[in-house]
């Protein structure tokens, strides 16, 4: 490994080193604030190292990792998302008398896993990143050990994630037996082979691999774990699953399945289209009857992954940038949504039932305004990030004449609007009996979470109003894909 390779690996190494450092510091003395500060500094240092690392990019390091501007862009996204998870997690854990420090350790490890996914170019590094992410998540989901739902969610995730990993491995094996190569770049070859039929083994392997990927992204029909895990996991962890875990996996999917020139065709195009349509419709339809905000957001995330797939399938010159922009808009929004919920949660309960938002606007107008912004952005109302993301997805789809997908997107997002409106109605309705309000109303707004929420609200509007600089960066980074 040359000097330049080391420089390129800086971001990954700094995050892992921070995890080790944090472990040592916990061993010496438990202190919540120290743990939070160490992790934040570590993540900030990793973010700071990105410009240096990208100065030596693009670079293939050891056949496992490909470090180019695309990887670094996604690493930046994941790291920034994890910063917000830390900020919200700090307040959340402060209210809950639990072992708090390991949370940061696990989040750092999981973030490392997601970053490896974004940069991996080989089956081995793919699997390594995936397992690093999953194993940390098992513990994170069941982090609040006094709650039965958390344990249940953890077990559920453990069983399903482990079996999906097994399926994924089997897919790898099939592909390897046929092609003799462990390179992820062969996906691009298989999916974009126009006309000539790939062998059955390759195709089966590809589908099994897609199963594993689909599980992490929680698209239909691999979505069954989502509502339970979203509901059972502590709020910051739910935010983490929704952002970093999905973001890392999507980075990998977009890089290796992103079709050049024309959109996805053939078997993989068909399968992904069906998955996208099913996810958009199922997610939005199932969310309609939920009364738990976490479950609503879980189902809405399924639909949003469907929207993302539309841009991926459309491909062309606009597909990858549109998907990336949409993902960023979604991450900012969903972090804001879960962040709001975190700030409203008390020491023994989470603000997850719809009733705990009744009349929120009249006693806490600013928090309610932030939550409204997030919901409108999820619904794709103009001036918010979600709208521009949706606009880009629509444009990329229209450029490739994917009308069926686009119509499904439009119809399903109208269905989706209904349940976002339901939350709004509750928030702006008459306040409920004063019992819950007194509890929620007396909670002081913690400083770090408030700051984070303000920043996220600002970002939602910034991404919705002035996309130009970011769009240029994304186009630049995704140019070399494939």
């Amino acid at each position, binding site marked *: 490994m040359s000097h330049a390779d080391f420089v390129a690996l800086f971001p990954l190494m700094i995050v892992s080193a921070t995890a080790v450092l944090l472990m040592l510091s916990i061993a010496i003395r438990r202190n919540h604030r120290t743990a939070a500060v160490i992790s934040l500094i570590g993540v900030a240092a990793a973010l700071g190292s990105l410009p240096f690392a990208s100065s030596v990019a693009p670079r293939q390091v050891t056949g496992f990792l490909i470090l180019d501007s695309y990887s670094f862009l996604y690493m930046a996204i994941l790291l920034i998302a994890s910063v917000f998870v830390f900020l919200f997690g700090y307040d959340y854990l402060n209210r809950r008398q639990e072992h708090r420090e390991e949370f940061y350790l696990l989040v750092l490890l999981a973030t490392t896993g997601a970053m490896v996914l974004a940069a991996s170019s080989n089956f081995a590094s793919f699997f390594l990143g995936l397992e690093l992410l999953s194993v940390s998540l098992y513990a994170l989901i069941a982090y609040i050990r006094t709650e039965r739902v958390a344990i249940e969610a953890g077990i559920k995730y453990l069983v399903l994630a482990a079996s999906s990993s097994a399926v994924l491995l089997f897919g790898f094996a099939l592909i390897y037996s046929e092609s003799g190569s462990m390179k992820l770049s062969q996906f691009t070859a298989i999916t974009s082979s126009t006309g000539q039929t790939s062998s059955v083994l390759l195709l089966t392997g590809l589908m099994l691999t897609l199963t594993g990927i689909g599980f992490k992204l929680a698209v239909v029909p691999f979505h069954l774990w989502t509502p339970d895990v979203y509901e059972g996991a502590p709020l910051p962890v739910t935010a983490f699953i929704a952002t970093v875990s999905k973001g890392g996996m999507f980075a990998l999917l977009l890089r290796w399945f992103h079709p050049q020139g024309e959109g996805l065709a053939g078997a993989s195009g068909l399968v992904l289209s069906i998955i996208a349509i099913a996810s958009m419709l199922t997610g939005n339809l199932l969310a309609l009857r939920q009364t738990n905000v976490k479950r609503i957001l879980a189902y809405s995330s399924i639909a949003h992954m469907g929207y993302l797939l539309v841009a991926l399938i459309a491909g062309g010159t606009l597909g990858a940038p549109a998907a990336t922009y949409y993902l960023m808009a979604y991450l900012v929004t969903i972090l804001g949504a879960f962040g709001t919920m975190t700030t409203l949660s008390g020491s023994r309960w989470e603000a997850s039932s719809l009733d705990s938002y009744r009349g929120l606007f*009249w006693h806490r107008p600013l928090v309610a305004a932030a939550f409204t912004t997030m919901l*409108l952005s999820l619904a794709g*109302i*103009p*001036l918010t990030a979600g*709208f521009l993301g949706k*606009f880009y997805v*629509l*444009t990329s789809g*229209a*450029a490739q004449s994917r009308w069926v997908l*686009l*119509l499904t997107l*439009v*119809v399903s*997002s*109208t269905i989706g*609007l*209904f349940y976002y*409106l339901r939350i*709004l*109605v509750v928030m*702006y*309705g008459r306040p409920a009996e004063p019992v819950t309000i007194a509890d929620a109303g007396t909670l002081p707004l913690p400083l770090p979470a408030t700051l984070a929420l303000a920043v996220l609200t600002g970002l939602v509007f910034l991404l919705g109003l002035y*996309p*130009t600089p970011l*769009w*240029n960066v994304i*186009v630049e980074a995704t140019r070399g894909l494939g």
Partner: protein
Amino acid sequence: MILPSLIMTLIVGGIASWIVARRSPDAARWIALVSVMVDLAMCLGIWIMQAGRTPERWLVECNFSWIPQFGIRFHLAIDGLSLTLLLLTYFLGVMAVLSSWSEIREKVGFFHFNLLWVLAGITGVFMAVDLFVFYLFWELMLVPMYFLIGIWGHERRIYAATKFFLFTQLSGLLMLIAIVALAVFHHQSTGVYTFDYQQLLHTSLSPRAARLLMIGFLVAFAVKLPAFPFHTWLPDAHTEAPTAGSVVLAGLLLKTGAYGLIRFVLPLFPGPLRELAPLMMTVGVIGILYGAVLAVGQTDLKRLVAYTSVSHMGFVLLGIFAGNQIALEGAVVQMVSHGISTGALFILAGLLQERLHTRELSQMGGLWETMPALSGAGLVFAMASLGLPGLGDFVGEFLVLLGTYRSNARLAIFATLGLLAATLYGLRFAQGAFQGPNRHHWKLPDMRPREWAVLGLMMICLVWIGLYPHPVLHTIRPGLAAAQQIAFSQEMVRR
């Protein structure tokens, strides 16, 4: 710079009145009133200044780059059509603020914030000539309107607000697909991404693509208008909204649909227009008759007025697709005078509800005895609504029928039947509410000076348009001619 400042005045005014309302609700009302009046004054200024000049394509224009990668520009421009509708917007805006002065007592600041932001969205819709910006404002109208209905509305407000939002959102998204597809097609044929109205006018489209895109636009505008099968949100939304909300909905939001048809559908898709025009005219006539017949059967005052809107908007639709200048001008005059007369009827319904605490016609009757002035005003607006000559609505309907007769005599005859039904519901309202014996022995205060001012001004405007519509026609003519020329050029030659 005057065009963005129209929007900014409302946006800033809305935020200011929200903040101030904590201290004093009256200050919030005054801020809202002043900001709408400032806009009204600015528009009147533009109107007076342009009166003597030779008309160019746009009277005022402003154009900034926004998202250069897709050629999206913050491009606003107004011609006579936009200007007329902007004047209507601010006139009704002032009326809406004044009419909610004593009705709205809860959350005054947030109410005026939403009211001003709806007006800002409507302003943007009437000014945008970049299709992306147009869509942006189109959607922006929705959210504050949703809150207006959902928070300050009557008994079934949540249902009505949600239905309104879903209808408009679905149709709006279809339009967004059409807009994006239009830009993409333009890109494919010229290599340039643009959403600019005047450049997209020259996009060459295959007949099939043009038809599909036109349907995308048409659905959005037909829902907003509303045209016959898409009208079901309207009676609910109008009935449940607070007075100011009903005024803005009936007076302005419906007009954005008609405006979109004239501004975008007519000139952008001349080809499929000729095929679809007879169908759309038929839909218009169905709307006229259907709305009028249903209005006759209503017992809820606001619902009755809501159905008359469906009927009147049928005339607008008929006029737009009749394919000649007279009918189109008639449609625009109808839009303006319907905005005023229906707005006034909703204000009247609000006044009655404030005093009687009911909107049921059966609970009223003989109100003339106790409130002669208010009843007299009611009679005037009912007459306007049924199309009495000398009042604004008559001019519009007459011109529409005249123009329609030229292109399709049979439909014109059927549409005239709508006027008959209009007489029925107009008289039923006037008689049921104001005439006859005072069976319920109401003893109520008559109009206050503020209410006099509101209804009196609206009455003057209606009489003005009814007797001397020339200024309005003169202002809208150049803009309409431009739209008309592209849309029906071949037919004009043939005639």
